[in-house]
């Protein structure tokens, strides 16, 4: 019971028995199915659109185009460039043009075939390296959505020093598909004259805002409830704005329930992905291996619309230089448009791309210096009191050093290195290797998203001592409801059984921003600590009045309450408070610590950081290029592990997504921008036969301002796995992968070149 214990997840029984209701499990009487008619081409001008014939089909209740949008024909995210239903031009294959509402999904699909459309094809811009300044215009004058820079020290002066050793390279990373097991979906219906949306999502308040604009309705008339959500990983941050708007426009006009659940291929083809990236780094160090200067250029392929790109690019730019002490920094990040599906949030949010580059180039430097990669990292890692690339002093909850020590020790790195060397001498066709990565993660939205950064909770205790908690943070599988229950239970020294964490509903709780950026635990936690604290204060005062005595402390433990010389059962106390009308209901709203970021990219970019190190062992088959991942030690400083078992679950699940990214997940696009990998047989993700022996390691350097010392970390497990993997391949057989994934073809090709 309480914080720090591996209690059973509150939602696991419901899920393991199949009783949880996901969107597709809801059936309403008279419910219609929505289906989207999409652009067949990647770039073109719509000359004619006629839905009349399709409308006449049996079972079709309505077909809606841009003409039927009552408000703005825009899906709001950050910039307002994303068109809801295409009017005159289309910018990627799969861009929505019309929404069909029908009795069955089959009928909708048949009707879609009868929609008449003429599109004048235009040359698509697919190669993002050609985007900036291209004659093909997608966004503004130059196709650049946004840029950021981080400048620290004096790079020009620093690199004049001719004794410095320099390494330089360019790295490429591909799209990554979230592959949440539950596809996108929503059901929309009218209730109490309010348009009610139940959807699979991370950010109900985004959806509410987007629909307010599309439908030109008051916010209070749009009620968004998060339905049980089958995985998200960033893929259900802003994208549900689109999905919900599609179902909502049908329900708005037809006044009947409309459900919309994407098929897998439709989902893969049209929903957001991780941005492909190109990262160029020049790293300079002195002859002892101390990093002296770094130049970085990060280019992101945003796709056809900006969606969350500005925020994604911010995080990528700030994280490029890693958790190292480097005085002279010059990093620029830029995101450009292409005629491909818009990319968005995905666990790590723009950082896995640059971490792959940085962690790879450090190994190049180690080679050049003839130093072990772990030693090179060790001497450059940030220590408490030192500054990040944005000039931010890191001293609170700064667990980097401890993470490093623990991971090196537990992985027995140096001893295994020797064993592997021996193995490699004895084996001709198989080579083993050890690779590492060290990284950090700015928790929360940071300076780029500070306008959305709030935390809130509503706590209510009923007369029987049971409690209901509402927070603005969603449960998408990461365990938020359990953690929220634990923190509430901890406050009153009772069992989690007494706590129900209610579903998130925009009509019940205030907007506390999206559930992203590993901010769930800390954001919900702050609200809960504050709300429960206020209730406790009120009870304290009441007890003093009642007993006519001052109590130093009212202490809650194991279902009992202690004050002065008195002891009372928790239930008895609540019963007493209720009968004497003590208010046991509290709403807390608070602001997290301030973040800043000036024109040179200097400031408190995030209020706190998480720290990590990975050690990955692989075995490479020199004859085929196949790579086996054998073991992975993944060590994370999480502040406080509110539920250690769930923390381990996050570490292993996230790490496997990272290994998939590095090893096999290979999204393919045709030269005209058409997405070719549209299902799980062509876009393969790791199965139970692909995962290595995981050793998840937890470090707890408590965050002084965090709830019970917690911070956040759930994206971090993914972020450094790709370079740890490719570094271990490099250690095994001396090939330098500058592109991922490390498919057998790619590895084999490099092996041949090496010969």
């Amino acid at each position, binding site marked *: 019971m309480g914080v720090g214990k591996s209690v059973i997840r509150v939602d696991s029984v419901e899920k393991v028995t199949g009783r949880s209701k996901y969107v*597709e499990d809801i059936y309403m009487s008279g419910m219609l199915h929505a289906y989207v008619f999409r652009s067949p081409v990647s770039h073109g001008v719509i000359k004619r659109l006629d839905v009349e014939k399709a409308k006449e089909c049996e079972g079709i209740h309505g077909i809606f185009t841009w003409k039927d949008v009552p408000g703005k024909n825009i899906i709001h995210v950050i910039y307002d460039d994303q068109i809801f239903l295409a009017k005159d031009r289309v910018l990627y294959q799969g861009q929505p043009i019309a929404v069909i509402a029908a009795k069955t999904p089959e009928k909708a699909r048949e009707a879609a075939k009868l929609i008449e459309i003429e599109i004048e094809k235009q040359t698509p811009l697919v190669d993002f390296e050609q985007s900036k300044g291209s004659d093909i215009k997608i966004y503004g004058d130059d196709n650049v959505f946004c840029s950021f820079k981080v400048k620290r020290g004096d790079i020009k002066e620093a690199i004049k020093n001719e004794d410095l050793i320099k390494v330089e390279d360019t790295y490429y990373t591909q799209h990554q598909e979230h*592959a949440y097991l*539950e596809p996108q979906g929503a059901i929309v219906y009218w209730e109490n004259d309010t348009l009610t949306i139940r959807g699979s999502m991370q950010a109900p308040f985004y959806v509410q805002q987007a629909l307010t604009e599309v439908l030109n309705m008051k916010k209070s008339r749009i009620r968004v409830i998060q339905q049980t959500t*089958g995985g998200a990983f960033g893929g259900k941050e802003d994208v549900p704005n689109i999905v919900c708007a599609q179902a909502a426009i049908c329900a708005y006009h037809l006044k009947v329930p409309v459900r919309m659940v994407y098929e897998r291929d439709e989902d893969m083809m049209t929903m957001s992905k991780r941005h492909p990236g190109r990262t160029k780094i020049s790293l300079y160090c002195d002859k002892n291996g101390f990093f002296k200067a770094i130049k970085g250029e990060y280019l992101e392929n945003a796709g056809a619309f900006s969606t969350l790109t500005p925020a994604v690019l911010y995080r990528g730019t700030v994280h490029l230089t890693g958790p190292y002490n480097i005085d002279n920094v010059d990093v620029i990040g830029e995101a450009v448009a292409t005629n491909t599906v818009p990319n968005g949030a995905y666990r790590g949010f723009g950082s896995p791309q640059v971490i792959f580059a940085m962690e790879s180039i450090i190994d190049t430097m180690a080679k050049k210096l003839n130093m072990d990669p772990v030693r090179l990292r060790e001497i450059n890692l940030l220590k408490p009191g030192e500054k990040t690339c944005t000039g931010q002093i890191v001293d609170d909850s700064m667990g980097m050093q401890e993470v490093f020590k623990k991971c090196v020790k537990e992985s027995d790195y140096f001893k295994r290195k020797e064993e592997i060397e021996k193995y490699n001498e004895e084996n001709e066709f198989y080579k083993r290797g050890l690779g590492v990565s060290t990284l950090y993660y700015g928790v929360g939205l940071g300076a780029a998203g500070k306008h959305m950064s709030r935390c809130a909770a509503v706590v209510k205790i009923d007369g029987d001592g049971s409690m209901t908690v509402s927070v603005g943070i969603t449960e998408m599988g990461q365990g938020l409801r359990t953690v929220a229950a634990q923190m509430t239970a901890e406050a009153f020294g009772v069992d989690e059984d007494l706590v129900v964490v209610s579903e998130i509903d925009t009509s019940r709780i205030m907007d506390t921003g999206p559930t992203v950026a590993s901010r769930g635990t800390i954001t919900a936690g702050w609200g809960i600590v504050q709300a429960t604290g206020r209730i406790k204060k009120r009870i304290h005062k009441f007890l003093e009045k009642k007993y006519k005595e001052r109590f130093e402390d009212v202490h809650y433990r194991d279902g009992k309450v202690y004050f002065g010389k008195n002891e009372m059962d928790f239930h008895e106390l609540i019963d007493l408070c209720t009968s004497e009308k003590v208010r046991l209901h509290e709403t807390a709203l608070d602001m997290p610590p301030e973040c800043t970021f000036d024109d040179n990219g200097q400031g408190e970019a995030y209020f706190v950081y998480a720290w990590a190190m990975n050690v990955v062992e692989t075995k490479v088959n020199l004859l085929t290029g196949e790579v086996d991942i054998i073991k992975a030690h993944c060590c994370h400083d999480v502040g406080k592990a509110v539920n250690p*078992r769930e923390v381990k679950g996050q570490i*292993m699940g996230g*790490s496997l*997504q990272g290994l998939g990214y590095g090893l096999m997940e290979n999204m393919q696009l045709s030269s005209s921008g058409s997405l070719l990998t549209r299902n799980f047989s062509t876009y393969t993700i790791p199965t*139970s036969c692909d995962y290595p022996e*995981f050793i998840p390691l937890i470090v707890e350097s408590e965050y002084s301002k965090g709830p019970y010392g917690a911070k956040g970390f759930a994206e971090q497990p993914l972020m450094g796995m790709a370079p740890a993997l490719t570094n271990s391949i490099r250690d095994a057989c001396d090939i330098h992968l500058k592109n991922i994934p490390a498919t057998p073809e790619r590895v084999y090709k490099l092996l041949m070149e090496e010969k």
Partner: protein
Amino acid sequence: MKIEFRLNGKDVSCDVPENYTLLRMIREVFGLTGTKKGCDQGECGACTVLMDKKAVTSCTVLAPVVNGKDIITIEGIEKDGKMHIIQEKMVEAGAVQCGFCTPGMVMSAYALFIQDKHFTREDIKKAIAGNLCRCTGYEFIIDGIEKALESRGK
């Protein structure tokens, strides 16, 4: 067409279009929504049920094939309102995150459980290789299944 089969221990019959899949039939005709649809193409395993004691992806079985068969879904393995030991052990092991793969995982494990054989950890891995899970990294799922299988004393 009319189909008769056994569903979770009871004889049932229904009239469905021939192109319905078993998945669609159990969800839409019988209202058993515990079986999930993750891909509808036989690639994710979320829709796994037992057909004549073998694990199958119900999205790739057409309704006519089901005639005369014995089908068990996630709703059919609890007894007297008590979870099956596989479910209990998976919950304890922390095998559930978003839960969308979970019913399918449980059914793949159940197909092992009812066999009178010993299974190693490697066997378990192979048995659930067709059940994708994007959340957990599999380790805790396999821990849970292993514990449940051990409880049979084999």
